[in-house]
């Protein structure tokens, strides 16, 4: 009997004999990462990715997918393969120096509760 489960979120699916390999299929469009500025005054935030043949198409596709409920005022797209990333697996040397500077964080400062607007 094939094993099956609902862990895929949408409903029962089998868990056996399901290939998950990797390789690439030719002719598909490259992946772009999408950043959206939700409203003026905010940073662009990474919201996901999109496939497109070129950057211009990526912008349009991102607009259609990620801002169809009017969530954005500005979009950036960048080819996923152009991103240079630090590796979280090498986290310590990169990020440890900042980790002990607790005074950079607002919660470091105890403020009496009766002081407003802080």
């Amino acid at each position, binding site marked *: 009997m094939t094993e099956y489960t609902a862990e895929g979120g949408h409903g029962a699916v089998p868990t056996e004999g399901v290939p998950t390999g990797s390789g690439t299929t030719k002719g598909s*469009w490259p992946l772009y990462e999408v950043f959206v500025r939700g409203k003026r005054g905010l940073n662009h935030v990474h919201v996901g990715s*999109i*496939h*497109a*043949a070129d950057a*211009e*198409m990526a912008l*349009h*596709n991102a607009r*259609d*997918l990620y801002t*169809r*409920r*009017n969530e954005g005022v500005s979009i950036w797209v960048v080819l996923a393969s152009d991103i240079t990333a630090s590796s979280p697996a090498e986290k310590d040397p990169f990020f440890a120096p900042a980790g002990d500077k607790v005074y950079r964080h607002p919660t470091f400062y105890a403020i009496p509760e009766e002081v407003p607007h802080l």
Partner: protein
Amino acid sequence: MRTTQEDHDATNAYQSLADTVGHDDPRWAFGTGVEDVQAEITSPVPDGVDAADLARYCLMLGDDALICAQRLAEWVSNAPELEEEVALANTALDLLGQARVLLARAGHVEGSGTGTARDEDALAYLRAEPEFRNVALAELPDSLDFGRAIARLLVFSTWRLALLHRLLASRDPVLAAVAGKGVKELAYHRDYAARWTLRLGDGTPESHRRMQAAVDAVWPYVEELFRTSDVERRLVGAGVAVDPADVRAEVDGVLDEVLSRATLTRPTVPPAGTVGGRGGRQGAHTEHLGHVLAELQSLARQHPGASW
């Protein structure tokens, strides 16, 4: 510190389950702005404007949008890529939104003298073919050929954008409001269609061949877009409508530019003929419209008087 953003959102999703009879967010289905337009549907007919003419004109523009939206909706689950599913549905939703306002306005204006106003659904679902006033271009089948969809959308959106630009100054407040929202939408549709025309026309030899064939197939129906009906002629004089003949140069210019950049040839095929001088604006359609309406209206007609 256990309360993360995810927990918070997960909680919200659960809450919304319990709260079943919800307010519906109009933006979800209609985009923003449609509510504002709807408030004006009952505006009085401008002075000196014939109500029957205005109703007929709203039907023309409304039916163009409705039938074109229906054709675009055929692409759902059939698009060449998932990104295009989303884009084509967006376009269909925009046009459907325009159609709803225009049909509602037509129904209101038409009934304003007699007290027998029809609503948008009565007009969409209970009229027969000859009562529809859309141009033939809107009803042509794509037969799931993406090139055909793009060719029609390119011509349709270029033409409709030119019309709506001029309707911004219409004396009818609803037409002006639809134009106000519509020009932004149509500019996007035209841009989308133009970009795809370039990609297909100047893509592979196969796509070039197919895109040229698609342009050739829709071209006979371009001529009708610039033919001025009597209704339009009278309403132009009243400052309500646009004379479609006036947008010809602009539309031609845009299409020439796009086609040539796409390495496509502007077709020289003769225009489709009329039926004794009558075309879509007079209720004389292609054979395709009957099938479009048979599908669109079937369920609504099976349940007369039902509300959904």
